[in-house]
């Protein structure tokens, strides 16, 4: 069964550095998402992406965040200047219609 894959599984970065989290959605899916989960808190919606543009974003998804689908397979989340409070598990998800299929997540630690 096809799966959403995310790399790396764990990323450690210093405050102020840029990070790029990578995802390969399931190949025939049309809608792509990023979610995050701060330790002990709920899974929060960040952004949805369809037809090569953002379809919806949350208040969390400020100017420090950006998403891109640079080719036909990858879907990336960039954080331009990381803050301590960006430390979280970041999940990529994709769907053809409904429901969501999730990756294993990238644990981002900002020191």
């Amino acid at each position, binding site marked *: 069964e096809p799966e959403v894959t995310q790399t790396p599984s764990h990323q450690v970065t210093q405050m102020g550095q840029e990070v790029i989290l990578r995802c390969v959605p399931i190949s025939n899916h049309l809608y792509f998402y990023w*979610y995050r989960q701060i330790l002990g*808190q*709920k*899974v929060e*919606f960040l952004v*949805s992406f369809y037809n090569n543009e953002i379809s919806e974003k949350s208040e969390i998804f400020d100017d420090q965040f950006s998403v891109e689908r640079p080719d036909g397979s990858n879907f990336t989340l960039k954080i331009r200047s990381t803050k301590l409070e960006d430390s979280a598990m970041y999940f990529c998800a994709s769907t053809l219609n*409904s429901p*969501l299929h*999730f990756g294993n997540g990238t644990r981002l630690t900002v020191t």
Partner: protein
Amino acid sequence: AQRVTQPEKLLSVFKGAPVELKCNYSYSGSPELFWYVQYSRQRLQLLLRHISRESIKGFTADLNKGETSFHLKKPFAQEEDSAMYYCALSEGTGGFKTIFGAGTRLFVKA
């Protein structure tokens, strides 16, 4: 605004006991409701959705629009049911965002 509430952070039951994980939602339209599960060291995955009206791994959930609830039930819990359970809501199919409740950790004791 959409909201999903799971009042219990932790639910601990003995093997063979009935289980009910509570979920209430607020949404003015007709949402699509889901239960997702995350077993230890595994990815978040769909358990069931209200429109399917099916039982998965012995679990069922009925959408009660009057009470705006979508509680997850299983008559006889098994140890392998121990996991994190998330109730979730989407405005519909076709790429709408899905929002999640805070989750309930189910622990089934031998």
